[in-house]
Every structure is written in structure tokens, then in C-alpha cells.
């Protein structure tokens, strides 16, 4: 894990640019996660101080939302939709297959640090279920074979 001292200037700068924005905590957390890949637990102190909130309040917000994470993600984040529409198209079998192929469960990262796996509840791609995303790219009608091909491409690209 990176040393927070090297990340601190980034955090302070994000805090600074959002100073005057009403309701700025979520935009700040997004800003930090977009830049660093996660929200370092040590950043909570600086965020709390800057917004005049308690650390518990800031931590409460981070932990409430599924999207925010306090540990660094793998190089690529795979999200699998678990919602009804995808279930209607064998989403559960795909989920089992993906976990097996990666050798990890949800909220974990592979030992080589390439892939993180997260569950997601609807990607709005329900017309072409089952759906997954790899980083920001949505893929539809994902079969186990199609997933294996995708995985090979991403591994190869590394």
C-alpha cells in the first residue's frame, strides 16, 4: 500500500477545488477515488478537518455507499450484475464461473493484482443480459465462453 504522505497533496488539492461547492462530500470522495483508485483511510482525517465534520461522519458516508473503497483495487475491476434480468438469463451460472476462473470471491483482488471482482445491481443493460463491466466498458450477452475470451484478452494486454 502506498504511503499516505505521497497521496496527501492530491487529497488536499481535491479538497481545495471543492471548497465552495454545496453538498461537496460525495464529489470529493469521487475525486479522490477517481485519482487514487481508492480512498486511503488516512485521508479521512484531512477530509473531516476540511469540511468541519467528525471522522465518524466521513467514515459513515464512505462505508454507506457500495462504490467507494478503502483498499487499492486490482488493475482491472470486473463487475457482475446480480439483478433479476441477468438472473433470468443464467447470470448465476456466469457468476459462479467467474469466481472460479478468477479464484476469488466478491470484494477480493486476485493474488497477481490484475483483477478485482465486485457485485453490481443493474447496469441498465437488461435488454442484453447477462451483463458485466470491465473497468468502464459494458459487455452484454456474456456467456461463460465469451467471458473466458475477454479474460484472456485483458490478461494478454497486461
Amino acid at each position: 500500500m502506498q504511503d499516505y504522505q505521497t497521496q496527501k497533496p492530491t487529497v488536499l488539492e481535491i479538497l481545495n477545488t471543492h471548497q465552495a461547492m454545496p453538498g461537496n462530500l460525495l464529489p470529493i470522495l469521487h475525486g479522490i477515488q477517481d485519482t487514487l483508485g481508492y480512498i486511503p483511510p488516512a485521508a479521512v482525517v484531512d477530509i473531516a478537518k476540511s469540511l468541519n465534520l467528525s471522522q465518524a461522519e466521513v467514515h459513515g458516508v464512505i462505508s454507506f455507499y457500495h462504490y467507494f473503497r478503502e483498499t487499492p483495487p486490482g488493475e482491472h475491476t470486473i463487475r457482475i450484475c446480480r439483478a433479476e434480468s441477468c438472473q433470468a438469463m443464467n447470470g448465476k451460472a456466469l457468476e459462479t464461473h467467474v469466481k472460479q476462473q478468477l479464484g476469488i470471491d466478491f470484494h477480493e483482488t486476485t493474488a497477481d493484482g490484475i483483477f478485482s471482482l465486485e457485485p453490481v445491481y443493474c447496469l441498465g443493460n437488461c435488454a442484453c443480459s447477462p451483463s458485466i463491466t470491465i473497468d468502464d466498458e459494458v459487455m452484454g450477452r456474456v456467456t461463460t465462453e465469451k467471458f473466458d475470451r475477454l479474460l484472456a484478452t485483458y490478461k494478454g494486454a497486461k
Partner: protein
Amino acid sequence: MTRVFISRDSTALSLGAEQVAKALEQQASSKGLSAEIVRNGSRGLFWLEPLVEVETSQGRVAYGPVQVEDVAPLLDAGLLDGKQHPLYLGNIEEIAYFKNQNRLTFARVGLTDPVNIDDYLAHDGYRGLKNALALQATEIVKQVTDSGLRGRGGAAFPTGIKWNTVLNAPADQKYIVCNADEGDSGTFSDRMIMEGDPFVLIEGMTIAGLAVGATQGYIYLRVEYPHAKIALNQAIEAAYKNGYLGENIQNSGKTFHLEVRSGAGAYICGEETSLLESLEGKRGLVRFKPPLPAIVGLFGKPTIVNNVISLASIPVILDKGGEYYKNYGMGRSRGTLPLQLAGNIKHPGLFEVAFGMTLRELLYDYGGGSASGRPIRAVQVGGPLGAYLHESQFDTPLDYEAFAAISAVLGHGGIVVHDDTVNMADMARYAMEFCVEESCGKCTPCRIGSTRGVEVIDRIVEGVQKDKNTVLLRDLCDTMTYGSLCAMGGMTPFPVLSALNHFPEDFGLQSAKA
């Protein structure tokens, strides 16, 4: 230069539209053919995506579904002149699935370049705003009231009444908040509008601002929709540049500012008071009502909170009048509803139609039955908190009251189809599990009721004191329905009880149907 349309819609992209667009551009230029590729929204006939439409002397003709390997043969066959090919579909607007819709809100989606304001203006864009600028605030609200529009987000509350409340609430600052946290499985109409015609939403919000005297708007967008965020921000920038947002809109002296804010993956933030808490930078905990957000909303000020489709329906109402819109529909369900066909269905897509069509017509005449070819067994309408309908209920017309009469909801118009391989006890358990995962935790019936719900369903399925536990499950659902603060806990019993009532055999129970 021949114009070729290839969608930038997420679903089209998920099937390879980006690669098709790139291949077409490269191969056309290497063959010395001149083609201008326009990235449009999707027509919503998703089994035909990636769809390629070409502007020819005989009108616009379509080909689909097109994969990268089809591009070279298509160009050789004379794609740019609209020539025949096995993938040739002709005029997409003549296909029954499209032709028999009533596209009011989605009129431009798939037709235009979503982020080109000139294209928007050329296709009747901003005519509603132009009319609104000439009206008094009360007259704008009256048009909306006359249209009979009810919130398309799910609760179906009359939009005119909500607007009137905000209009009459005295305050130094008011807000327009667009609920773009479309989290229901099987729904994607908000996403399609935001990606395919973002200006119509921006125009609708601007009119809402004029109607109630609000100068600031926020679009609270779910983080799962990165493409929608890009399209919205591109369109907002163009609207500012062309004097349709900001100070002194079209020299009217009126002001309206608009900003997109990202959610962070919490389903509950689609509930309007949770959404407001989240916009204020807090955990998305549900607020007690009253006071209503219309009186005490964002930052304590009077606020309109409307769903994307509600707001996107406003421009056509202000353009053609409330009466025009009202003439579509049945009973107290007026206008059109963009339905979304998803799950195990042969022809999935978006289908905007006046209220009143039956579910069966939609599923079989247009949806083409299940994708697997097996019998359709259960259909969930209205998202994860909507009831599962049994085949015997498929003749129910799509109308708010008709659905309420069978303990179901139309919600946001999402329709998820399951074939006969579905296990309905699993689906009921999933509904409870989803509530465990997504409950904000503020009220006990939702937070703890859902956890106990999963356990009770497990015991029934395992055969542990079946009858006693079934009684217990019903009692628990009753507590959740009447004791929860908001629809999350209050409606989770809908899918659970409908599964239990219509498909008891999946729970290992005898059919107890009267």
C-alpha cells in the same frame, strides 16, 4: 458525403458498436468512399444492435445486427447506397415493433446526434421552452396539470400538483432535482434518454425551473451510467454556449443553472428523500415525511424531485399542449409510458406506447415470447419491488389502477421476463436479500425484517415447520408493508408474496389458490 448512423448507446456499445464504427470508418476511407459517421442514440430494437443506418436518396435504411466482420462485405455490397444485403432491414421506422409505438418522449432518440444542439433544434427541440418563456409560471403549471402526467419514476404522483406546491412555497431559493438513479433491474429508459437525447431532459428541467422559480438544478446520476454522464455533460456545455442555460436564457431575463452529480452505488438513493440526503453529502438515509421535499427539500428549500422520464415528457407537453398529451392513455393514466422489455425475451428493447395495451400483447406480439423458446412463466413488472405476475394475469392492461387492483405496480415500466426454468422461491429469497443489501437501515421493519425474511424463506424451502413458517412469513411481510418508512421495506413484500401466492409449489407448498 453519406451520413451513416451507429449508436453510442451503452447497450449497442455492449454488443460491439464502437468496434463496428471504427471498422467502418477505416475501411470506407481505405476504399476511398466518403462516409460521415454520426453517433446517435438507439432506436431501442436491441436484438438488431449494433444497427447501422444510412442516409440515402430513398430515405434512411438500416442494416443489423452488424458485427465487425460484416463491415467489408456490407461496403462491397453497396451499403453507402442502401443496396441489398442479408442484413438489410429497410426503413427501421416501418418495422412493426417501432411503427406501432407512440413516441412522444422518445421522438428523437436514435434519430438525431444526441449532443448536437443544431440537430436538436432542427427536430422540434426547445419549442416547449420557447412557449414556456412566453407564459406566466401558473400557466406553465396548468399545462402540466392538464396533461394528466403522473410521475414516471414509480409512485405515479400527479406532476402538476407537485409543481404547484413548490410554486406556492415562498422561499429565497428553490431547486429542481432530477432523479436519475434508475436502479431497478429491467429498466433502462432513463439511461436511453440521457444517452440518446439529453437535451430533452435539460429542456424539461429548464421549464420546471421557470414554472416554480428555481434557478438551480441538479441531475443525480447513478455511477453505473458513465456513458450517460458524458452525453449529459456534453449537452449541458452546448446548452450553456448557446444561451439555453445560465443567466438571461434566450434574452428572457430568466436564469437556470444545471449540474450533474454522481451517486455511489446505493439503490436506496433512488428514494427521493435519500437522494436529497446524498446530494447534501450525507449517507442516503430516508427522511420522515412530512415535511414533503416540495416544502422542505434540498438544503431545506422547496424542491421539485422528478424522475428523468417525467421531466423529459415536459417539452412535448409545453410544445403541443396539455390536452394533446392527455389524449393518449386510458382512465387516470394519461399520455405514454416508455416500457422496457428485458430478461428472457426474444425481442428486448424500448417500447413507448399509450397506457392501455395488455401485457400479453407486448410480450408475444412485440416481444416475440421468451428468448430461450420455452414458455414464459413469470413476469416481474416495475423493478425489484414489483410483483411477479402469473400467466393468468397477462391480460391486465398497462394502467396504474388496473395494476394496483391485482396488487402489482407498473413502476418505471420495466418488464423482466422469466421462462419456466425459474425457481420462484429463489426469486422471493433474492427480493429479501436485495432488501438486506440495499436497506438504508433507518427503520427496523426494513433493516431487520428483510434479514429475518431470508431466514424464514430458507426454513420453508428446507421443509422446517412449513405451515407455521409460511404464516410467519406473511406476518413479517405485513409488518414490513405497514411499518416501513419508505417503499424499500414497504414494497419488498410485493415480489415475495406474489411469488408465494402464485407459485406455492416452488416453496414446496400445496397450491392454496382460491
